[in-house]
């Protein structure tokens, strides 16, 4: 097994004068639940379409299971190991749930009848209902069932919980955790819902304007990022603004708020050495990291 299950190096893609991906780097460890975060239009769907070879990059490399995405010969073999759920759910509306399952099954030799039964029940999917008559939540769950039951080693999910009500979101997250726990399936999912990423992902990438701006293990990011609040006697803002590890500085009156991405102890020591400075240190949520790294760029 390669070190990374999905790897992208310096991916670039433009549509006309619009730059969608601007040198994207991506490294997804096997067995991870990987949250791919970004605002609308940040390049999430473009990345997924490139990985699945639906569109071609202008330059750069990407591989899945160690196979380059441009390797036509082995492309089909790789695709069979991937379950994919897209934003616009491309299901035949005139088929019933039962028909579409019977229609999909023969394409995948590794089809898991046990998982099919399990998720039909877990998602309470009505076999005789037409796909076109399903609610949005039910449609998503059906797509997920079709992706999971093919016995995929990798699930690529484009906004799997988009438009679902909170109860349906919870169902989907619970089943994703369960599929990862029982089969070691790697799950790569895009989202702009920070709360759900924070709940189930162990690795994240924040993409902004076609570039990965924050990547890493979520636990490590939360340990590295800290907010330091300082009450100062005099102007200090310019002194700390350029210290290595300081991401952002805000000042209101005599209070200075620093978002720090590394070197927390060194920065604290430096501030404490200043006359009359009192410091407080706060943990930082993924939402804070997201807003501070994406908003003002």
């Amino acid at each position, binding site marked *: 097994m390669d070190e990374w299950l999905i790897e992208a190096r310096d991916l670039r893609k433009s549509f006309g004068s619009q730059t969608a991906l601007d040198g994207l780097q991506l490294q997804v460890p096997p067995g991870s639940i990987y949250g791919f975060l970004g605002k609308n239009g940040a390049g999430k769907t473009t990345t997924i379409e490139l990985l699945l070879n639906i569109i071609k990059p202008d330059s750069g490399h990407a591989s899945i299971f160690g196979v380059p995405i441009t390797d036509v010969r082995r492309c089909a073999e790789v695709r069979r190991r991937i379950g994919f759920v897209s934003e616009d759910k491309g299901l035949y509306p005139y088929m019933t749930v039962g028909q579409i399952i019977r229609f999909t099954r023969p394409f995948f030799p590794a089809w898991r009848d046990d998982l099919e039964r399990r998720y039909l029940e877990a998602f309470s999917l009505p076999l005789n209902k037409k796909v076109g008559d399903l609610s949005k939540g039910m449609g998503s769950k059906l797509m997920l069932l079709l992706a999971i039951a093919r016995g995929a080693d990798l699930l690529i999910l484009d906004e799997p919980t988009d438009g679902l009500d909170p109860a349906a979101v919870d169902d989907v997250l619970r089943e994703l955790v369960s599929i990862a726990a029982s089969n070691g399936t790697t799950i790569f999912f895009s989202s702009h819902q*920070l709360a759900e990423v924070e709940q189930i992902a*162990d690795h994240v990438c924040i993409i902004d304007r076609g570039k990965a701006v924050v990547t890493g293990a979520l*636990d490590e990011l939360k340990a590295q990022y800290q907010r330091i609040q300082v009450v100062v006697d005099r102007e200090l803002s310019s002194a700390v603004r350029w210290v290595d590890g300081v991401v952002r500085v805000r000042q209101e009156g005599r209070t200075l708020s620093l978002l720090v991405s590394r070197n927390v102890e060194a920065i604290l020591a430096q501030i404490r050495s200043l006359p009359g400075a009192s410091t407080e*240190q706060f*943990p930082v949520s993924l939402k*804070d990291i997201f807003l501070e790294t994406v908003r003002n760029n």
Partner: protein
Amino acid sequence: MILRLNPSSGIPLYLQLIEQIKHAIETEAIRAGEQLPSVRRMAEDLVINPNTVAKVFRELERTGVIEVRHGAGAYVRSSVVSRTKLMRKAQDIVGAAVDRLESMELTEDEVRRIVENDLASRRSKSGKK
């Protein structure tokens, strides 16, 4: 043992989970020799990443809180329970201190900040992470 996590806080989930399991042992919600739920079960119940739970189990095993028997699950070690009495005593001390702080009209948030910052500055003074 009832565990409650807050994924949206800035504290990494695995640290929250370690603290809560230790707390459950200290308050005897789970006792020496008793079995913890499996990694898979705990991940599904809490709807969190199974790798996070696995990391917690590794850390609890490394620090001698639990013993992982191959294929038979994870058990609370008897040696950790000796801290139960100590923790009860500590709880009394903290309780008395918080009573005094509250009588000085400090809010809950202020009390928490003072304690956390005191711990943080001790950490940075002793020079370790």
